[in-house]
């Protein structure tokens, strides 16, 4: 069977001394230098075993959902109309459309979080984590709406017509407008975390998972994949070879559709299992299914992965969305709320369902509880590693060719996410140190170096650091969103009034 051969390859490679030494050395260095940061971000709430940060983004999402009166449901139809260009003046053609801003933002978010992250979530939190992940995704739509509206409203437009936007700009300008102190400080703090997040989740995590997938399927050592990825990223961001990035941008959406399509085929082929899988998701969400931490464990894993995957509240999306050309910043907010829906509720759920339906997670036939492995996760068939290998094994159990197709998808997803995040990181970097050729070059070189570091490091410390850096961005960003949300509310009310009175008209 497929997964046994994968396991055999993995075991073989793990035994090779060269890889173990490079990987372990870097991993050790990494854990030693970033451990304090990770510990701070993931510190438990006093007297509980719940990391405070997990609640942070979800509470934010709940607040925004209530404050804007369930905007994700009420304005869903309008968001679709905007993306289809119904409210766009044909004379503005040639400017960035809502669809393009959404597509580019999505290619930064739909990535390995959807393939690897979800596998990690269900292999630690069981099927029930899926439920909490979907819930967090739906709530996160309101957060995205808030941050992307602000992103467009407070972006910088330079005399030459280029735009630059993101939390650093709304933290600075928005705070000043409301007479709040520390706007500049918050903006710089966000930028620092943005650079770290770009190097962590936007770079090392991606390189790591791409390398481990190539290793498990094709048997290519991680350092080779790492070196190749480093060179290609170098060529694109330093060599300025735009054509590679452009090709990826076009292929990635097709890959995304293909991924969901193949997932659908597996669900259709196992149609008799779909209701069982949904039952498993609900059972795991509300009862103790035997995982470490019980229900709370499932909630934590679900929330954590949703936040990591759709990045709602993290503050990365406003950077991408702020390029759109619109007179109404709020319209981009509406459009952006589709992002967590597509990313988490559709793509992530597909991954989870495929893993559950193909029964990769071992369940004790008598008690119906998960069998745990030594590491405290759910034991998997063939003992494959959590992350991409688990998703790969799940798809592979249905279609023999799927792991190969998945390898290509993983590399492309990883690559496009890295390119997008190199841009986000650059925006943070230039906000701190200022713009300039040399300064930009320094960041790009650092970025390339970390591609290699990520590829050869083992998952544990990289994943922790990635999460920690991303969540740190979220801490700063969400504080800003709380303080600036009355501005968004005013925009929302004014826009809705004008839409109702017919002042804002559809062109088509």
């Amino acid at each position, binding site marked *: 069977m497929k997964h046994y051969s994968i396991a055999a390859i993995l075991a073989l490679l793990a035994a090779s001394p060269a890889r173990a030494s490079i990987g372990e050395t870097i991993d050790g260095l990494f854990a030693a230098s970033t451990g304090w940061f990770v510990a701070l971000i993931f510190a438990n709430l006093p007297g509980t075993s719940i990391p405070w940060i997990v609640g942070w983004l979800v509470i934010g999402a709940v607040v925004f959902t209530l404050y804007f009166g369930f905007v994700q449901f009420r304005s869903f139809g309008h968001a679709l109309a905007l993306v289809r*260009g119904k409210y*766009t003046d*044909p*004379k503005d*053609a*040639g*400017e*960035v*459309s*809502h*669809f*393009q*801003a959404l*597509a*580019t933002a999505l*290619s*930064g978010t739909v990535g390995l979080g959807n393939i690897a992250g979800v596998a990690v979530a269900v292999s630690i939190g069981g099927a029930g984590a899926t439920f909490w992940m979907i819930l967090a995704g739906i709530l996160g739509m309101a957060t995205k709406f808030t941050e992307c509206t602000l992103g467009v409203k407070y972006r910088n*437009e330079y005399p*030459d*017509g*280029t*735009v*630059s936007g993101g939390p650093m700009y709304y933290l600075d300008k928005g705070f000043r407008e409301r007479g709040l102190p520390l706007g500049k400080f918050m903006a710089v703090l966000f930028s620092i975390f943005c650079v770290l997040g770009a190097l962590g989740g936007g770079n090392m995590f991606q390189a790591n998972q791409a390398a481990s997938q190539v290793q498990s399927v094709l048997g290519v050592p991680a350092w080779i994949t790492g070196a190749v990825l480093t060179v290609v990223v170098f060529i694109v961001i330093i060599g300025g070879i*735009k054509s590679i*990035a*452009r090709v990826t*941008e*076009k292929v990635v*959406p097709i890959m995304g559709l293909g991924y969901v399509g193949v997932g659908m085929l597996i669900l259709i082929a196992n149609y008799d299992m779909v209701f069982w899988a949904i039952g498993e998701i609900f059972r795991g969400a509300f009862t103790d299914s035997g995982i470490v931490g019980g229900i709370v464990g499932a909630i934590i894993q679900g929330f954590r992965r949703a936040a990591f995957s759709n990045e709602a509240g993290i503050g990365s999306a406003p950077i*991408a969305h702020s*390029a*759109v*050309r619109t007179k109404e910043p709020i319209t981009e907010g509406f459009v952006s709320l589709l992002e967590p829906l597509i990313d988490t509720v559709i793509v992530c759920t597909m991954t989870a369902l495929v893993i559950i339906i193909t029964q990769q997670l071992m369940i004790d036939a008598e008690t119906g509880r998960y069998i745990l492995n030594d590491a405290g996760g759910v034991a998997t068939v063939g003992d494959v590693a959590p992350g991409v290998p688990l998703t790969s094994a799940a798809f592979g159990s249905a279609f023999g060719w799927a792991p190969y197709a998945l390898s290509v998808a993983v590399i492309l997803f990883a690559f496009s996410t890295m*390119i*997008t995040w190199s*841009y*986000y990181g650059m925006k943070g970097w230039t906000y701190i140190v200022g713009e300039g050729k040399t300064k930009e070059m320094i960041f790009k070189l650092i970025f390339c170096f970390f591609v290699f570091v990520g590829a050869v490091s083992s998952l544990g410390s990289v994943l922790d650091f990635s999460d920690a850096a991303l969540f740190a961005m979220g801490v700063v960003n969400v504080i800003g969103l709380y303080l600036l949300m009355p501005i968004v509310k005013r925009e929302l009310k004014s826009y809705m009034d004008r839409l109702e009175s017919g002042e804002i008209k559809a062109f088509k």
Partner: protein
Amino acid sequence: MTEIYLIAVDGSDASQRALSYTAERAKAAGAKVVLAHVLEWSPYSFLTQEELAERHARRKQEVARAESTVLGPMQSILSEQGLAAESVVRYGHVTETLCDIAKEVDATQIVIGRMGQSGLTARLFGSVAGSLAQVAPVPCTIVP
């Protein structure tokens, strides 16, 4: 009612032919001339992050270039012959956008030069002149 001739131009030799053809007839008929230049564009294409940020700047450059290299010279040719011409630069699907412009300016006729593609390319992708002839809302003259 004054006749309004809309000339679809793209800076090629074909559009030069269309221009001189129309100029003669416009003089004879006392018609107004509108020059339309459409840049192919789809709001559903995929752009990279940097392309997004630079898009507005690029668009300004592209419009300026179209005006200075394509429309400007043509307008001066027309004005030498005593004809005043408006010009329009627009983005979009070329054929559809030309039809929209024709309706907006109340054109009574559209004139377009034919590139004369033959063989496989033309069969597969069609030509702007060919598809315009199919969908134009007003009479359409194709200048070979």
